């Protein structure tokens, strides 16, 4: 056996203190296999050692929450015996190295997290952040990531219904690929990962194990240097075909009562799935690696325990049910093997070629994993109202804004995703939230992902609140009742106190907003160490929100539907230009305070709007976010092919009023006869509301300011993506 040298410890990403603690927990030196197991279980990714103390502060409960954080995904009750299961997860680093496969396997991974709990995935979302468009790598990364997401999701037959794409130079060396999966199950058929009881068979299902994604650093150690080319850390290649079979086979097995516990093999594959299942079940697990289906000859115990081969699951069955389960997996032409047994020792014991190659108390891997209260340096939020040129042509600016990389149409992206398969997509990409019908019912799920990283950079706390508020607002805007969120906390190196502050403030902001909006966090993921040239990315706590519509027939969309409708602005406008898209794209400045978020105003305004939609009084609604009022109106006009004429309120300055990014606002269009009633109702509810003008014509016109044809807007809006990605970039394929 290889002696563990300080270099090997270092290569495994463990500190001296952590290594000392491992020796103490074992009462001896670990061998290399054990060291590998500790290194992944104690990694930031698996142990949440930098964030755990902070995540504890998030609100995770509500009467409708059936399962909060701690399982593969969170679960909410959506009535009638239906449960909605969802989670978001990042695949940032792999996607930067190999965009197609990195993104594809990210999609596959999050789907497994959801269907391992018994749900059929019904919708996918993705939140993507790329470097500056003119950075030499960006084009290739965008086309690869989008093709990879489509390549996997389309084959799975799950509609990809929305997401976000943003560009900023802080992601030049570290893109973000966050994928969210939403699934449906019955509330009494939810599967958990606690491997309870001793003497139960542990079964391996899915694809064979290869040397995929084994931690690069470990290759330096002696045992792994025979053939460095062969042992190079390999990128994981996704196999959506096998995953589709795995999905169907798992759902078929789940229809029986043979399963005690089931868990996907994600990061750190066999190691983390077995340790976590044993940990949750309070049991021990013994594995015999000779039984593991292997793709390559001569795999070592180390390889098998650390492999991140995709499309695999681990399950604990009731004794005697192996044959029945095996028949199902054989039918779907998948590998199936009994590779171990649960015990009452609470130890993880691994055998290979007749020898015990690892024997560790499971608590040493889980409970005893390090937890850090990393130091942080509080940074004052950016402040002040930026200076802008009030004489600029508003309509020219509008055309420029709608044609800018962060605001233009994402059609080029979503047309590569099958967004209507499963025949329940009632709101396709392009609106405020996607809506998928609960199959066979009139209910719908509203789904959205949101975060505005530039706000988070200026003010991590307000910015994180804003991300939650925007998600909540997007769901209200289609008429959904916001139910719960998943989060994907993308930050820089937590060992740098300034980044750690962003994390601490960000989690606090999310917690505050979720509490105020009764919008609990039921699952999530942290991705730290995202850096470009030693500088952290913009803090990017992406929020994935899910809401419920009682009746999808009553859903609102952004498209203007009739000429002659009254346009009503809901919410207060102060003309906040700090950190706005307008300021960045038109004035070339990233300055000022992020817009403050008044959570009680959010609640009041959103409740009013949702109520109007639910009552069938509003069918056209858009929340105001990037680009403010005029951008929202332009989007509504382009979507509906109907223009509008509005006027500024007395004394309002055009640019701040039209482009300011004040929060808690919506623009609705209603038949003019209904306008007075709605305005009166808003007044009673204490919600600022004002009639701005009417719909009609083929232009957007602002009285005394200017006008622009919808055609000109649309041309700019649709042009950027195809022009940016057309021609020179070869679409990647698998």
């Amino acid at each position, binding site marked *: 056996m290889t002696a563990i040298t300080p270099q090997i410890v270092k290569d495994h990403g463990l500190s001296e203190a952590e290594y000392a603690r491992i020796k103490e927990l074992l009462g001896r030196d670990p061998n290399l296999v054990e060291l590998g197991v500790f290194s992944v279980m104690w990694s930031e990714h698996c142990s949440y050692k930098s964030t755990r103390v902070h995540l504890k502060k998030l609100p995770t409960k509500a009467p409708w929450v059936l399962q909060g954080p701690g399982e593969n995904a969170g679960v909410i009750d959506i009535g009638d015996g239906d449960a909605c299961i969802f989670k978001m997860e990042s695949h940032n680093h792999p996607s930067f190295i*190999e965009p197609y496969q990195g993104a594809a396997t990210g999609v596959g991974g999050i789907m497994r997290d959801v269907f391992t709990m018994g749900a059929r995935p019904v919708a996918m979302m993705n939140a993507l952040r790329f470097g500056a468009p003119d950075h030499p790598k960006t084009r290739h990364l965008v086309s690869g990531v989008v093709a990879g997401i489509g390549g996997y999701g389309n084959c799975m037959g799950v509609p990809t219904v929305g997401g976000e794409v943003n560009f900023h130079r802080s992601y030049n060396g570290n893109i973000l690929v966050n994928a969210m999966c939403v699934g449906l199950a019955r509330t009494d058929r939810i599967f958990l990962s606690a491997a309870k009881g001793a003497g139960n068979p542990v079964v391996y299902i899915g694809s064979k194990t290869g040397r995929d994604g084994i931690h690069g650093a470990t290759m330096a150690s002696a045992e792994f240097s025979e053939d460095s080319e062969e042992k190079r850390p390999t990128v994981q290649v996704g196999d959506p075909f096998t995953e589709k079979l795995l999905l169907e086979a798992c759902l078929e097995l789940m229809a029986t009562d043979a399963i005690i516990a089931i868990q996907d093999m994600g990061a750190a594959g066999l190691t983390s799935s077995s340790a976590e299942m044993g940990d949750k079940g309070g049991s021990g697990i013994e594995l015999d690696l000779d039984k593991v289906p292997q793709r390559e000859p001569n795999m070592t115990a180390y390889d098998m325990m650390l492999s991140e081969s995709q499309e695999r699951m681990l399950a604990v069955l009731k004794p005697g049910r192996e044959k029945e389960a095996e028949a199902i997996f054989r039918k779907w032409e998948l590998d199936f093997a009994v590779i171990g047994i649960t015990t009452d020792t609470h130890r993880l014991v691994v055998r290979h070629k007749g020898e015990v190659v690892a024997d560790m108390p499971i608590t040493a891997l889980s409970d005893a994993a390090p937890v850090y209260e990393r130091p942080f340096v509080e940074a004052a939020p950016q402040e002040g109202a930026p200076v802008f040129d009030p004489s600029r042509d508003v309509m020219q600016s509008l055309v420029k804004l709608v044609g800018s990389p962060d605001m233009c149409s994402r059609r080029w992206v979503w047309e590569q995703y099958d967004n209507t398969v499963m025949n329940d997509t009632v709101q396709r990409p392009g609106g405020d939230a996607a809506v998928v019908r609960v199959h066979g019912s009139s209910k719908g799920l509203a789904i959205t992902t949101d975060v505005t990283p530039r706000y988070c950079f200026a003010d991590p706390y307000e910015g994180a609140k804003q991300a939650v508020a925007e998600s909540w607002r997007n769901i209200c805007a289609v008429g959904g009742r916001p139910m719960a969120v998943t989060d994907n906390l993308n930050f820089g190196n937590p060992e740098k106190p300034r980044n750690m502050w962003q994390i601490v403030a960000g989690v606090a902001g999310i917690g505050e907003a979720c509490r105020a909006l009764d919008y609990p966090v039921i699952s999530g993921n942290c991705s730290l160490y995202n850096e470009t040239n030693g500088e952290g990315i913009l803090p990017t706590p992406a929020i994935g929100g899910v809401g419920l519509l009682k009746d999808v027939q009553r859903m609102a969309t952004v498209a203007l539907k009739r000429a002659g409708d009254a346009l009503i602005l809901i919410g207060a406008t102060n003309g906040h230009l700090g950190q706005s898209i307008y300021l960045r794209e038109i004035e070339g400045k990233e300055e000022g305070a992020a817009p403050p978020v008044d959570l009680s105003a959010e609640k009041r305004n959103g409740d009013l709007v949702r109520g109007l939609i639910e009552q069938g009084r509003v069918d056209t609604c858009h929340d105001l976010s990037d680009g403010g009022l005029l951008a929202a109106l332009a989007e509504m006009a382009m979507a509906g092919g109907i223009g509008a004429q509005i006027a500024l309120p007395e004394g309002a300055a055009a640019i701040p009023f039209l482009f300011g990014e004040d929060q808690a606002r919506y623009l609705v269009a209603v038949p003019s006869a209904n306008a007075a009633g709605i305005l009166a109702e808003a007044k009673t509810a204490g919600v600022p509301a004002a009639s701005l003008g009417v719909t009609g014509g083929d232009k957007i016109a602002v009285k005394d300011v200017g006008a622009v044809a919808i055609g000109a807007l649309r041309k700019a809006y649709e042009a950027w993506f195809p022009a940016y990605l057309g021609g020179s970039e070869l679409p990647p394929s698998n």
Partner: protein
Amino acid sequence: MRARVFVTLKTGVLDPQGKAIGHALEGLGFRGVGEVRQGKLIEVELSETDEARARASVKEMCEKLLANTVIEKYEIELRP
């Protein structure tokens, strides 16, 4: 000059396509089929007539575009 470039997955990288083809061949009743791997064949017509220069240029094409060297390797064959 004509170049044939064979782009294949590096050893150890999962090849779902090859796996599925192997499986299908078995299903069709072919016996004795071992591993199947699928790669790409790219044929490039070149005006260059000097073999060494052609090879260097095709190698550069492979590194820059034809092969995804994170997961693929390539082989070049030149014919006059």
